[in-house]
């Protein structure tokens, strides 16, 4: 049985792991490699590193930490943030990243997804989507440049349409990050994730809102996602990954122990 994945996300800014509430006021929570190693030992199934500064400031970012992570950890990991070109993707994969995740640059130029897929295969192309509930239109919509509050903007994309579009263009996985829920630990947005699940033929990773063990159980059993991503509950030791996995297994969910 394919196991449901628990994926700690490490938001990286200037070479450190940070966390902000609803993408704001980032505080440093630790160094990249030791945190990655700790989560691996605790039973994380995969790691995601989001370099949240990258899309905003158009500058060359030192990504050599990726090879240090690859040297030390023996589970898969994905690197996100500011990947706009095939050359940048190639370098990260050469450093040892298993997957690369693209968010804002794919919104600016959707053809990037197909070009990445043609070059590296869809299995390593993850599309991150920052989705929010737009009260005016009573619908789910996509935001861009969420790494910096001053740069964040709304897009014309409805979330469902963008989910279809990125699959058509050849992504291998989708991370749906629900922004209204982020960092406030009120639970994953089961309703929205279930809607997207129905449209999603590739693996779907839920992100945003995890606060309790029950939230993880609900997102796996009700929204039927393949993986659940969380950050603050792990960084702040509110939830221990081993205890979480033991609990989920007791609930009858396929889990790697």
């Amino acid at each position, binding site marked *: 049985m394919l196991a449901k994945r628990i994926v700690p996300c490490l938001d990286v800014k200037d070479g450190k792991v940070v966390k902000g509430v609803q993408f704001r006021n980032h505080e440093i929570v630790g160094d990249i490699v030791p945190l990655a190693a700790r989560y691996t030992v605790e039973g994380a199934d995969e790691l995601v590193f989001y370099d949240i500064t990258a899309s905003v400031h158009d500058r060359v970012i030192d990504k050599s930490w990726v090879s240090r992570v690859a040297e030390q950890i023996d589970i898969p990991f994905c690197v996100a943030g500011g990947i706009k070109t095939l050359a940048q993707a190639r370098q990260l994969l050469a450093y040892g990243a298993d997957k690369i995740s693209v968010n804002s640059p794919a919104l600016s130029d959707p053809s990037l997804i197909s070009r990445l897929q043609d070059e590296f295969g869809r299995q390593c192309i993850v599309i991150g989507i920052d989705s929010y509930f737009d009260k005016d239109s009573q619908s789910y919509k996509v935001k861009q440049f969420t790494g910096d509050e001053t740069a964040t903007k709304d897009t014309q994309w409805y979330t469902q349409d963008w989910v279809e579009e990125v699959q058509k263009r050849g992504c291998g996985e989708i991370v749906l990050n629900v922004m209204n829920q982020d960092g406030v630990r009120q639970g994953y947005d089961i309703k929205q994730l279930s809607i997207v699940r129905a449209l999603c*033929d590739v693996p779907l990773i839920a992100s945003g809102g995890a606060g309790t063990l029950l939230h993880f159980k609900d997102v796996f059993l009700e929204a039927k996602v393949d993986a659940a991503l969380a950050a603050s509950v792990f960084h702040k030791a509110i939830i221990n990954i081993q205890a979480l996995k033991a609990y989920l297994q007791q609930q009858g969910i396929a889990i790697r122990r």
Partner: protein
Amino acid sequence: MSQQSLNNPSNDSISNTVQDTTVIIDTGCANLNSVRYAFERLNNDAAINTHVLVTDDLTLIKAATRVVLPGVGSAGAAMNSLQNKQLINLIKGLTQPVLGVCLGMQMMSTLSSERGGKDKDCECLGLIPTQISELDSRGAPLPHIGWNQIMPSAHPLFDGIKAGSYVYFVHSYRAPLSDYTIARCQYGETFSAAIAKDNFMGVQFHPEKSSDVGANILSNFVNMNSNTDFNAFTPLTLSNPVETNV
């Protein structure tokens, strides 16, 4: 208990003079470092001492104690790369243990239906008589990404690996079950998680990303050399192909 020490009592004296080498073939595709790091981590175990190198040098590959054929991307692109590097006949002639990983395993087959934009199937190395085609996930999301359970056979590559162990998969194509299956996995249909013939063996999953289970499998491979007797094992004569619910 390693097989080579039984078959070759002089192994110890040889290893004092000849460096044990694990060569990872530089196929020209990205992400060879993950495989290299995984083998290098094995050297932390006092019982293992292998020099790991990534190269496309024909002489070095030929002289290696064992060879790894990695691969990412599409079958066609990877086969082209081997062709351009004049590696195809060399690989076919290797007599030491050879391990294909993921696409590397698929390249060991005779033919892959992963066309990658071409108008016909991709001819592969023909080392293991099986053909690669699309995984039938019976409606589950594709690619097959994540940790899934394997049912290993008695092949020495899976020495000490329990039925139901989790390893990490990322793929959309697969080798079907056949006489050459040495481990199986289920995702929709049941397919070959690993195949082997003689000194050639391949795994569909990524042992380099499969935590302790993966490290054990790689360490079993590192315990093989040109003295390993693969005739002692044939998948067909398996005494106990484990059947368990997965």
